């Protein structure tokens, strides 16, 4: 990967002083991320270009990588050796560390003032977000040129590559230019190659001093810089705002003060709890409990004497156990709540004899030709007195502007049913298995399209 910095001025070779790198030498810097080289392709009257070339060793990268499953780094075949990424950001920090601080004893006045600079990055991943580079750099006073190439000239149907060449021109202090690259290259890249530690927020704030707080893409920058770790993002945002003027803050507070409509997920949980109360359930299984959002509600309600959560993902169950603090609870609480690794497509004798089984947003994750297995295990074998099923109402999708026609709400949804389709399934299943059906809606009801979530209560024949 290659970064060139071009400075046009009568004494352009002063760039060497500013970068603390001699223009007539090829200098090498062995770094953790690879081998960095600094050399000057151009040193002429009026113009000087410095180049930072980073040789990344993809094999070393893979072998040195521990812990994450980020696909980009999981393979020897990746774009890391070619594109300007967080690896280049690290190289900038380590190779141009003094320049980043803005210190230059030889030319202090040059370091302190904006200079006419042109930065060129040979290859920058923009993830296919066409205007992302401009959105990030133009607010900072750069003129942005983006060079696009086809992904493969032989495959015009594939369109442009998700990698672009970038040239930035502007009057910017060298210190700021480097700091902006340092912070924004990883934002463009999305994937951080190194562990995001708790002090990452400090690093971001330091590099963003003076320009980040007012940047229109501030939230995006923080979110991506901190690898989407919510607490770090919130913390950094708060500290940024503290350092900033009160007006920004007021806006934020106003937004927060708006009356909050409970999310559809909360409304759904409330509807399921109401349905459980209606059927008088004291023992209940949340089948497909995920990380235990509904379980937490069930645990809080003393009516439920026995609570079972099952999921097909062992990791989800681990998180559910953490969320419910099962480790710290007493024996009685632990006996009351049971987390089981299980699957709706297998018969599980451990689920027999319950008052109710909840299938909240579960059936749409099962291939439609496997629903007979779900039916067999839940209504055929476990046979609780009641089954409560919720699933999206596909008709209502028309009211989600962000959702293209025919698109589904979640990529893993195997289907989303209209009210008629859901009713047909529940009626057929109930008929075969000896249950009676009641349908309800969850969430704001549209006159024509119904509620966003549909809910069915199936009561076993012969039970009250």
């Amino acid at each position, binding site marked *: *990967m*290659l970064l060139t910095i071009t400075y046009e001025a009568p004494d352009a070779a002063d760039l060497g002083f500013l970068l603390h790198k001699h223009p*007539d030498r*090829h200098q090498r810097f062995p770094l953790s991320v690879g081998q960095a*080289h600094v*050399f000057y*392709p*151009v040193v002429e009257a009026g113009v000087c*270009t410095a*180049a930072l*070339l980073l*040789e990344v060793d*993809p*094999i070393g990268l893979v072998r040195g990588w521990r812990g994450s499953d980020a696909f980009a780094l*999981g*393979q*020897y*075949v*990746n*774009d890391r*050796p*070619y*594109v300007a990424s967080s690896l280049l950001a690290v190289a900038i920090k380590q190779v141009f560390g003094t320049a980043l601080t803005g210190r230059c004893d030889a030319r202090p006045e040059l370091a302190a003032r904006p200079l006419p600079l042109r930065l*060129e990055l*040979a*290859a920058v991943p923009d993830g296919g977000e066409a205007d992302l580079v401009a959105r990030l750099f133009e607010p900072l006073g750069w003129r942005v040129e983006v060079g696009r*190439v*086809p*992904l*493969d000239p*032989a*495959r015009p149907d*594939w369109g442009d*590559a*998700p*990698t*672009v*060449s970038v040239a930035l021109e502007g009057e910017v202090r060298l210190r700021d230019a480097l700091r902006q690259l340092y912070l924004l290259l990883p934002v463009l890249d999305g994937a951080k190659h190194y562990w995001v530690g708790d002090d990452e927020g400090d690093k971001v704030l330091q590099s963003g001093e003076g320009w980040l707080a007012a940047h229109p893409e501030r939230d995006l920058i923080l979110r991506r810089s901190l690898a989407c770790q919510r607490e770090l993002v919130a913390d950094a945002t708060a500290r940024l705002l503290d350092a900033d003027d009160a007006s920004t803050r007021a806006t934020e507070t106003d937004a927060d003060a708006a009356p909050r409509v409970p999310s559809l997920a909360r409304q759904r949980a409330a509807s399921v709890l109401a349905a459980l109360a209606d059927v008088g359930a004291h023992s209940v299984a949340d089948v497909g409990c995920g990380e235990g959002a509904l379980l937490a509600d069930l645990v809080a309600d003393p009516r439920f004497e026995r609570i079972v959560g099952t999921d*097909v*993902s*062992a990791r989800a169950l681990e998180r559910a156990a953490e969320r419910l603090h099962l480790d710290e609870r007493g024996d009685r609480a632990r006996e009351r709540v049971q987390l089981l*690794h*299980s*699957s*709706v*497509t*297998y*018969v*599980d*004798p451990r689920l027999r004899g319950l008052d109710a089984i909840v299938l909240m947003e579960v059936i749409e994750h099962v291939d439609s*030709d*496997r629903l007979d*297995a779900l039916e*067999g295990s839940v209504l*055929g*074998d476990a*046979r609780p007195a009641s089954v409560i099923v919720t699933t999206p109402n596909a008709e209502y999708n028309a009211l989600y502007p962000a959702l293209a026609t025919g698109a589904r709400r979640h990529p893993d949804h195997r289907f989303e049913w209209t009210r008629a389709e859901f009713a047909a399934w529940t009626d057929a299943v109930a008929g*075969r*298995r*000896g249950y009676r059906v009641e349908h309800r809606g969850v969430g704001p009801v549209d006159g024509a399209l119904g509620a966003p979530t549909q809910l069915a209560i199936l009561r076993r024949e012969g039970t009250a």
Partner: protein
Amino acid sequence: MSDDAIRELGIPELSLVLLVGVSGSGKSSFARRAFGPYETLSSDYFRGLVADDESDQSATPAAFEALRAVASQRLKAGRLTVVDATNVRPDDRREWVRFAREHDVLPVAIVLDVPAGVAIARNAERADRSIPAAVVRRQAEAMRRSVRGLAREGFRRVHVLTDADQIAAVGIRRERLLTDARDETGPFDVIGDVHGCRGELESLLTELGWSIERDALGRAVDARHPEGRRAVFVGDLVDRGPDVPGVLRLVMGMVRSGAALSVQGNHEDKLARALEGKKVSTGHGLAETLAQLAGEPPEFRDEVAAFARGLLSHYVLDGGRLVVAHAGLPERYQGRASGRVRAFALYGDTTGETDEYGLPVRYPWAEDYRGAATVVYGHTPTVDPEWINRTICIDTGCVFGGRLTAVRYPERELVSVPAERVWCEPARPLAPATDATPATAPSTAQRRADAPTIDDVLGKRIVETAVLGPVTVREDAAAGALEVMSRWAIDPRWLVYLPPTMSPTNTAKRADVLEHPDEAFAFYREGGVLDVVGQEKHMGSRAIAVLARDAARFGVSGDRRGALYTRTGRPFLPAHEERAFLDRMHAAVDAIGLWDELGTSWIVLDGEALPWSLKAEDIIRDQYAAVGAAAGLALPRSVAALEAAAARGIDVSALLAATRERTDDAIRYADVVRRFGAPVPADGIRFAPFQLIAAEGGLLVERPHAWHLGVAERLAAAAPDLVRTTRSIDVRVDDPGSVEAGVAWWERLTANGAEGMVVKPAAGLVRRGRSIAQPGLKVRGREYLRLIYGPDYTRPDAIARLRDRGLGRKRGLAAREYALGLEAARRFAEGEPLWRVHEAVFGVLGLESEPVDPRL
């Protein structure tokens, strides 16, 4: 009651033996002499275990709890267990009788009734601990008072030893349970509920090849099979039918002569009680039986009473491989003796509910049956007998106008004759066994009886395979597989095989390549596999095609014609495209006459679906092509910058040379991506089958690869637009000329753009004792590997570092996955229950979730 004269004490070989005697009566030394070292559980010893002191009486409750826990494990495992404690009080013993019943074994008491004085003297001699004389006297008194009532307490065998010399000399004789007929190896004709249908019974015996012997009055009194087969009756010989005495005369004769065995049915049980003069209700045909017997002489009635009373609850036959019981028997009760074993065997597991006809609702125990023994039973009339998890109910309701059915064992063939007429109107209509009738418990209506349950797949599993013995699937691996299987895989009924991962050849000795045929040939040469075949490795996606002419063979209703799925069991194509694919494959198989040739209605084909972009278009575009584009942007600019610096006289020559090389590598890489990532042709998928895994009756993998490729060629001739052939070369690995030709073939192949080749033993599956030879080793081409190891992996420093690849783990995994996959297909081909097939397939997926370098 005293056994003074007896030299050997007979006890059932599976029983709970209670030693009864005061402290110092010599129980422990008797036990040491008479039983095995682990069979005796001494309360003293357990007090020591829990309290470091054998005489600490305060530790007694804890000691007994631990003792019971150990005894329970032993009895569950079918091991005789002796409890060495005083057991002098009825309360102590009562608990042990209950304990024995809970474990379905017989309680036995051996009483050491030595004079109190002797015991007291022995106690006094003990250095470690001594029990006061008063305590011993109290024990002796308690024992004396209660010992007479031991049989009433529930002990099925009581031995009392009073003489010290005898205690020191007497031996133990272990007796087989009456139900243990494991040394009877058949072959057997197991016959269903006769219910007094003598005519049909004679017809069925004749149909089965028996010759019937008659008395002077022409009445059937015995039967003999020319091949020495034995009949086993599942009970319910009597009631409801027209000629109960005739049936009994014949069956009793056969049992007497040794030609037959019979277990007791609930109707015999009730008849016995009636004939013993007990008050029983005479419904369900008993009244008619009694009326018919009234016409017989009293000796015959006495004989019937003794016969009916003497019948056993079940038989365990043929080395434990066959169990016959009237209403069936779960594994935990087989070969056991207790009231509930008998109740289950006679009446089944009733839920206590009754159905709309007033008949008991029965718990469908067979659906949960996971035992190794075949269980043949009757009791519940059904229209068509059906094997469910190695069990079969052969009551086909003869007396209700159905059929009388026998199953031939070990052949497992069903033979039946129709009823001559409806002898008795059924309380409820006869229905097929698996139909959703109100008669069966609603809990299992429409559930496939042998569907895998969560218990069949979760937890650490050891799967016994025919080719490799036991294969272990770790608990966390199984957990990982559950998610994949549940969320992505196709219906398990179609998932009868999953392919193994394939290991690369050992890393090449040559410096410029990672993989080379030399190492693959040498590998097999060293393993003694001299004839190998090199097969072109297609650049596509592994795909399994199941073709079925009759979906019912897969337990599926409807007209689905098979399935095409990936190596993790996901559907390969959307449903309508899969249907079109299957139709075309069927047409090809029809055309070459393969069904008849193999005598099958289904086959499983392992192959490669082409092109790669069919499944991988997204990853080719977003991952592989994107890397090429990034390199194309970055490297030429780096070269230009370096050239400019060089022109200024800066010495960047080494970096410039390296960067130019990388630029060339990137161009080669982009070519490889373009070649292997070619778009899907307008008419879609190609399929290159390289092996037929299985067909009806068994595996086909022990046929030579030449046969498999030959079939593929015939299929390709029949469907040239769909089926691709696989080029191959035979290599004799100990012939240098042949090896050289094999290497040259690979070089040409890869130079012309093929991915590489797979070297396999020419004979197919090659067994090595309890192990197998590697089923195949892949040798991938130098250019192709850029897709795996990166565009410039061929640079000397890179390739040197890549040589250390840790192949051993991959090899082991490949062999175990292969064994599991074949095991699944074998089980399916041999008609085993679905859960057995699924267990093995699930294991493949479990092993696949073990961490291995994905580039291998």
